[in-house]
């Protein structure tokens, strides 16, 4: 029987990382959790214990929260689907182009977040590249206004931004699947859908969950993209920001943030459970 190693000096090497984690992540989070039960009077936080911030979050912001989570679900699903398709294609269908195509997808990470937003503004605008192309081909006779400053623009911009983050974990899982396994399944009579459902997806389940979680959570917390390309499509992050700035109400902002966090985590867990159940033979 293996003896469990005693707390050795090598474990102390983890202490700096643990301290950074506790100080830079856990402690601020705990602080915001504590103040979410406080109140504000005369612009100054008071150390009370009240649930009114959480009650107000549900009563005043249920519509904004619902809209935000719907957009996040749509972007999470779209990004995961595109990432799975792309990762599958470069892993099994593109032969020697596998590495260059993966590099091409990842190189978009080098562009800054705001640069991507402004790039999409110039693509989707009334006089943007896309409208010009559609006019040139005769597909439309008037520029489409709905491309920019709309929820469509938020979905397009965030999906583009999140795609590399979603491709990586799925591709990492797909690397573990040997092409011979798929060929064997096909030789035994399995159709394409059966191969995908019974071999590919079960083996990259973790990658799919991670990809969806990334895309969903980043979208649920984002407020910059909707402000720049959404044309007023305010998401929950905008209202949280408002409480922290103009509202001078950090307790309310914290309660709103923790509510969104809790609901988002619940939805991710539901997605994970549904995926697992769907993959059971």
């Amino acid at each position, binding site marked *: 029987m293996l003896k469990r190693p005693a707390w050795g000096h090598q474990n102390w090497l983890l202490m700096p990382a643990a301290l950074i984690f506790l100080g830079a992540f856990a402690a601020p989070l705990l602080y915001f959790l504590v103040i979410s039960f406080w109140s504000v*009077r*005369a*612009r*100054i936080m*008071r150390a009370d214990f009240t649930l009114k911030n959480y009650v107000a979050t549900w009563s*005043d912001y249920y*519509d*904004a929260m619902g809209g935000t989570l719907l957009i996040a679900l749509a972007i999470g699903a779209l990004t995961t689907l595109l990432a799975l398709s792309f990762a599958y294609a470069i892993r099994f269908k593109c032969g020697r182009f596998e590495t260059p195509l993966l590099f091409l997808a990842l190189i978009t990470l080098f562009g800054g977040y705001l640069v991507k937003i402004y790039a999409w*503004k*110039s693509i989707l*605008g*009334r*006089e943007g590249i896309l409208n010009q192309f559609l006019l040139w081909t005769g597909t439309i006779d008037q520029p489409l*206004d709905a491309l*920019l*400053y709309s929820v469509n623009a938020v979905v397009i911009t965030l999906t583009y931004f999140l795609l590399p983050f979603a491709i990586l974990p799925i591709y990492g899982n797909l690397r573990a699947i040997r092409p011979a396994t798929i060929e064997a399944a096909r030789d035994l009579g399995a159709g394409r859908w059966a191969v995908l459902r019974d071999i590919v997806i079960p083996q990259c389940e973790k990658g799919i969950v991670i990809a969806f979680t990334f895309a969903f959570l980043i979208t649920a917390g984002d407020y910059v993209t909707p*402000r*720049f390309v959404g*044309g*007023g499509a*305010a998401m929950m992050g*905008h*209202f949280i*920001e*408002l409480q*922290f*700035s*103009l*509202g*001078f109400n*950090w307790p309310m902002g914290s309660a709103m943030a923790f509510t969104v966090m809790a609901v988002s985590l619940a939805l991710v867990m539901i997605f994970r459970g549904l995926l697992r159940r769907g993959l059971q033979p």
Partner: protein
Amino acid sequence: MHNRKQELSALAQLSARSALSRRQALVGAAALGATVAFGARPAFAKTTMTWMGWQGYETPILSGSFVADNDIDFQPTFISSNEEIITKLQAGGIGKTDLITMYFGYLPLMAEGELLEPINTAKIDQLPKLIPQFVAQDAIKYNGNLMGVPWNWGSLPLMYDPAAVSAPPESWLDILKPEYQGKVAMVDDPLGNLLIWGTVVTGKPMGTILTKEEMVQVIDKLIEIKTKHARAFFASYGDMSDAFARNEVTVSAIGWEAVAVWTQAKGKTIRYTIPKEGTGMFMDCLCIPKDAPHPELSYKMINHIVSAEPQKQFATEQSAGITNLDTVPMLPKELAESYNYADIDGFMKKARLQPVPPTESDGSVATYDDFLNEYQRLSKA
């Protein structure tokens, strides 16, 4: 109603902050002593001064040799809204920020939130030269203390694209005409929208002092503009400028003279006008945040910014209004006339300085919190 308990609690918080400052000062003094003793601090080390404000507002600081003469390592942080400064100060900026430039209307709120130091007027030698109508504003005082030094101003005019709009709109309501549908620019500037549309909707000269019912009517009108007429509810004035430059919009429901300068830099000419209902006016003040690390240098910097030559440079580069009367004769004629320095009182009748809604009310007037709650309806629409 006066609440003694609240006051004591506020004082306790203030005391705690002051104690922290004293501790920091002691640590700082010890560190300074040690470095002097061991000679570790090089003789040429500069003082890092942290400043927050709009891009372009740093122009007067960098003019002349002020930064070099005072061995300053100038560290600007550019903002996209005034509210960003409030957030940054609340999120750890206190004790680390030397100077900010802030819209005057927020000064009472910030003073109440213990984010600002009162200005020691004896240390502002330029104060007697500043436009008296601005310095006399009650809104920049708190408990009898001056909380900010007025240094630039302007109005919120209606912006329009002369290539698409033949004559300047005469009324703000002209932007609701069918020909502008889907081509109206709005900006997510909570107070700015109220300054203009509070007056347009209610006819009251002070569009920020409204009853709750009037506040609802104003927000309803803004929601109508946003949902039926606007191309977008832009995040910032910079975004509005981009939209004018890309021909996305032709008229605006809010404006700022600087937008015309920025848009011109992108190769597009737009103009502005003050419609018959008048408009809001803004005045930005230089404020010293609570526990500013280098208060003496902050005062020196304020004096430099509001002195004649840096004010001239700022006014000409940004097409902005300035406050030092000694600067006015130095300005190009067209610029001086556009701000009507000869008749400030007359200009202030068309473009009015208005306070933010009151923090407390007996119910007859909508409070600042009432306004924020209503404004969130506009954000959601």
